[in-house]
């Protein structure tokens, strides 16, 4: 363990700049975006320096820590605000600050017409700070702060145009869904403390061998729940589609490249828990598998380009989660896919943004068509991203996804076949719906009406796209050459020397199978979408269901929302009528008694005397009873 004093700047700089932009208000409108971009760039520089420094060091010395101050210290509950930068977090730091910076640059142009641009950049910086804290925190509680921080930032950015009620609702939905996940994280932390008396990664890792399987399974399940919330995994996936309400750069950065992958980070970071609890691991596999198919299916029916990409994101993260479920061998590939996906998906989102930019914010792909001619750069960069995602060699996606499919099959037994099959099927569907996107958007005949004047975007926008495109072309090869990433991460996920024990099938065969199904998917798409009606055809019941996101919202609405509202109404009624009613009832009874007593006071001496006499008799009788 080495200590460094610069880690804090990674978080402090963007945080401070975001605070400045928010507090100064309109004064900062002129230069706000520049400051934000500069800060983001500087974080990338710091990250790069740290990275190269790390490569100089070897073994355990690679990890860097910085202890800032004691955050909470109550009884045996001690949490330090301290940061940890190791082989795993550096990947994320580079991705976040790198892609983050590119998207800052892109947004300068993209948001140039919005008179709240400063606020937008403030949020972006806030996000960068929170996300970096998330990956740099050395304990679950520190991670939690970043975890909620990115949630907040995403909430703010989704609702950036919250004057549109729909967008405000989308933002709220995202936050609440994330909160459900946070229950998981909170409980996970509590379990960790109750079990191990600490919540730091190292402490928990050290304690795992002594803990009961039940505890570990519970811990794992809770972590998985958290991951599902943040990474839009089944069953908490429903918010991601609506989150596309945010400006497109946001979708690119937060809802494609970085934040939504936090779940993968969490699981990889907690590998010691899942390695020790097969049950938890299986859950992870199931969630990952289900989600990757779910997302892929939803993707096939979306006409909104951003929603299609969102569905694809969900599905790709499904791949990553699935990979993390495969144990030590899987983590590295999960991270690899996460990074490559960061490149190509961000690139494609920016492409989509650029298209919308040219089509005055039209998102319906059925109204696109033949955009390739008017937006060559966008088309090319998007195309490269496309090739990467469907996994055509030698593009990035090929290496990462192929590895996952391979490892999945190698998991062995029916489990292997199931997850492998799911992964393979996913690959096919991915190929289909991505091809669909390409066909609908860039090729074919123009279907847009004449007031739209699509044009290539300004350089500030296409330069980042180009860079990301390069990433989506080259990164996979780089990561995979000589198992670079695997070895790099091995010490963190203690996968040192772990190899897939017995191969289910030779790697090449699996690769060929993968390519085969991809080809099929592509072919179907091309044939199916030779002609595209501007209005979506009615479609059969299945199509309808898929268009309704496999009824996810209907399900939530019936199972959660409406009962919740009913419960609320019931409670409100109960509070007014029942609980307060009891109080009022007591009052009423007393008042009634009072009026009756008042009536007894009828003003006749004789009746008063009578009352007295009765009193005397009562008195005598009681005395009698008492004494005899």
């Amino acid at each position, binding site marked *: 363990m080495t200590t460094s004093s610069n880690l804090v700047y990674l978080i402090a700089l963007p945080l401070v700049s975001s605070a400045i932009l928010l507090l100064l208000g309109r004064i900062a409108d002129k230069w706000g975006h520049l400051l934000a971009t500069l800060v983001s760039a500087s974080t990338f520089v710091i990250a790069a320096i740290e990275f190269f420094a790390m490569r100089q060091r070897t073994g355990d010395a690679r990890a860097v820590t910085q202890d800032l101050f004691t955050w909470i210290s109550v009884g045996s509950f001690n949490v330090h605000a301290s940061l940890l930068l190791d082989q795993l977090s550096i990947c994320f730091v580079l991705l976040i600050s790198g892609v983050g910076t590119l998207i800052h640059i892109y947004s300068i142009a993209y948001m140039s017409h919005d008179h709240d641009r400063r606020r937008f950049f403030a949020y972006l910086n806030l996000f960068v700070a929170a996300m970096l804290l998330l990956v740099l925190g050395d304990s679950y509680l520190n991670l939690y702060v970043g975890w909620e921080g990115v949630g907040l930032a995403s909430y703010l950015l989704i609702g950036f145009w919250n004057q549109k009620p729909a967008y405000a609702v989308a933002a709220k939905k995202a936050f609440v869904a994330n909160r459900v996940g946070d229950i998981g994280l909170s409980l996970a932390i509590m379990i960790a403390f109750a079990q191990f008396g600490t919540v730091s990664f190292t402490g928990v890792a050290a304690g795992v061998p002594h803990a009961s399987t039940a505890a570990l399974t519970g811990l794992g399940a809770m972590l998985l729940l958290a991951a599902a919330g943040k990474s839009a995994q089944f069953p908490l996936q429903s918010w991601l589609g609506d989150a596309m309400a945010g400006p497109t750069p946001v979708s690119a950065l937060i809802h494609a490249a970085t934040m939504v992958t936090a779940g993968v980070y969490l699981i990889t970071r907690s590998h010691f828990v899942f390695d020790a609890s097969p049950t938890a691991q299986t859950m992870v596999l199931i969630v990952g598998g289900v989600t990757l198919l779910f997302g892929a299916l939803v993707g096939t029916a979306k006409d909104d380009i951003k929603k299609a990409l969102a569905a694809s994101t969900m599905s790709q993260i499904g791949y990553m989660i699935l990979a993390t479920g495969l144990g030590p061998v899987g983590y590295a590939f999960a991270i690899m896919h996460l990074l490559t996906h960061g490149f190509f998906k961000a690139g494609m989102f920016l492409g989509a943004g650029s298209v919308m930019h040219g089509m005055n914010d039209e998102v319906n792909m059925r109204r696109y068509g033949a955009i390739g001619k008017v937006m060559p750069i966008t088309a090319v960069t998007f195309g490269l991203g496309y090739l990467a995602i469907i996994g055509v060699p030698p593009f990035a996606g090929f290496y990462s996804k192929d590895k996952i499919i391979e490892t999945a099959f190698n998991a062995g037994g029916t489990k292997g076949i199931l997850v492998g099959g799911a992964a393979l099927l996913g690959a096919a569907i991915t190929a289909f719906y991505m091809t669909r996107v390409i066909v609908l958007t860039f090729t074919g005949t123009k279907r847009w009406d004449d007031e739209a004047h699509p044009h290539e975007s300004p350089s500030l926008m296409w330069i980042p796209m180009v860079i990301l495109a390069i990433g989506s072309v080259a990164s996979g090869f780089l990561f995979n050459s000589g198992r670079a990433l695997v070895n790099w991460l091995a010490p963190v996920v203690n996968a040192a020397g772990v190899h897939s024990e017995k191969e289910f099938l030779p790697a090449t065969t699996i690769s060929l199978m993968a390519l085969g199904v991809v080809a099929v998917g592509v072919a179907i798409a091309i044939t199916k979408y030779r002609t595209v009606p501007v209005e979506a055809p009615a479609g059969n019941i299945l199509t309808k269901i898929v268009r309704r996101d496999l009824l996810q919202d209907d399900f939530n609405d019936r199972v959660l929302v409406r009962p919740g509202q009913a419960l609320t109404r019931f409670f409100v009624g109960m509070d007014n009528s029942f609980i307060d009613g009891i109080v009022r009832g007591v009052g009423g009874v*007393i008042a009634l008694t009072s009026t009756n007593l008042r009536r007894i*006071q009828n003003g006749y001496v004789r009746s008063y005397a009578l009352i*007295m006499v009765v009193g005397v008799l009562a008195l005598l009788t009681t*005395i009698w009873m008492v004494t005899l």
Partner: protein
Amino acid sequence: MLIAPQLSYSLLAPILIVLGGALLGVLVEAVMKKGSRAAIQTAIALGTLVLSFAFLWKIHGQSSKTAAVNSVSIDGVGIFLQGTILILSFIAVLFIADTDNFAAQASAVPGSEDERASVLAGKQQTEIFPLTLFAVSGMLLFPIASDLITLFVALEVLSLPLYLMAGLSRRRRLLSQEAALKYFLLGAFSSAFFLFGAAFLYGYSGSMSLDGIASAISANSSNDVFLLIGIAFLSVGLLFKIGAVPFHSWTPDVYQGAPTPITGFMAACTKIAAMGATLRIFYVAFGQAEWQWKPIILVIAILTMVVGGIAAIAQRDVKRMLAFSSIAHAGFLLAAVLALNTDGLKGALFYLATYGFTTLGAFGIITLVRDSSGEVTDLNRWVGLGKKSPLAASIFTLFLLSFAGIPLTSGFIAKFSLFTGAYESGNTVVVVVGVLTSAITAFFYLRVVVMLFFTDPKNDSVSVVIPSFMTRAAIAVCALVTIVLGVAPSLLLDTAQTFATFIR
């Protein structure tokens, strides 16, 4: 050759002085001209009370059973209560002395010509002063009387003047006379019970003195039936005077009908005297037989608190409301009877004193709220008084809070010390019921506060008259005592502790 009984005049002086003052007052009525009577009577009354208190001061700390041939016993409790009664009646006289509370000519038929004439002539029945003094003398005797005959005589001496005084209101004379009638008939009725009970106690113990009864009980000589009838019937007389349920029915009517200063005087002083006698009888005479009477007193105490507290809620007339509140307070005081211990006694003494001041003050304020036709006691017409006269309203609120037993008022300390005594003797039930009833009583006191302050005034002729100096002084004293004894109760509490002993 018979020996004249030994009377230690110094010990009896306070009572004798008051009686003398009363007789002097009667003479004044006989010889002086109408015009100058009021002033002189006031002077005599106040002077007498002060003098009597001075003599009482001389003998405080002494104690004797033979002051008047075993028929009175001078002891701590007695002297404390006598002192309290003297001070309170002094304040009461200040209220009484304020003009136009009393009938111009009691004999004149209400609404008749000669009434109108006498009113125009600005006459007033100044007999009220000697009557007051007679009543006071009875009240001084009642709590120290230690044999049944003296008790009975004292009871009558304090009651008879009150019957008359209740009927002497200047306005609403029909109500006033009705109050007098009811008070008289029921009072006589109850004293008959008292006497009958006394007879049977005599029959049981063969002695009239409380000690005799006590020793008979501890000797457990003859048949209990006599004792039980005796206790029961005697209690009726006492409970009637302190206004305990079910012998309370007279209270609201009389309190409402009687002239307000007299109501205050009754509410404060009569309660003290009657309570003093009750305490003495139950502590000294019946102390040994507690297992026979405690249950009924417990039931009566609870009934009294609850009925008083609840019935007050529905009242629309402020005097009736205070009447029921005084019933509830009687219930609290019975807790002291149950306690049968020094702390209970101490609590009762403190309670009686502070309650007396608060009550007098409250009724004093009521005398000030008037319209063209005299006092306004209808609560609905009191709304917004806080706007018209913040000072009077605030002081009245203070008294109400003290009644409710809110901390930092004397009423709270009183309740606290009383309940402490009761709890020590293991009467937890009565304590719990007591605190719950206090919550109920708080409700109607606070409702008045709401009317005074939180409701906008109806613009009718109701207003607060600027009182005479004496009334102002009296109210000021009451308010002051209520606050001071709330903040620094030790001033009186320690005294009460030293005086809280019966000589047996």
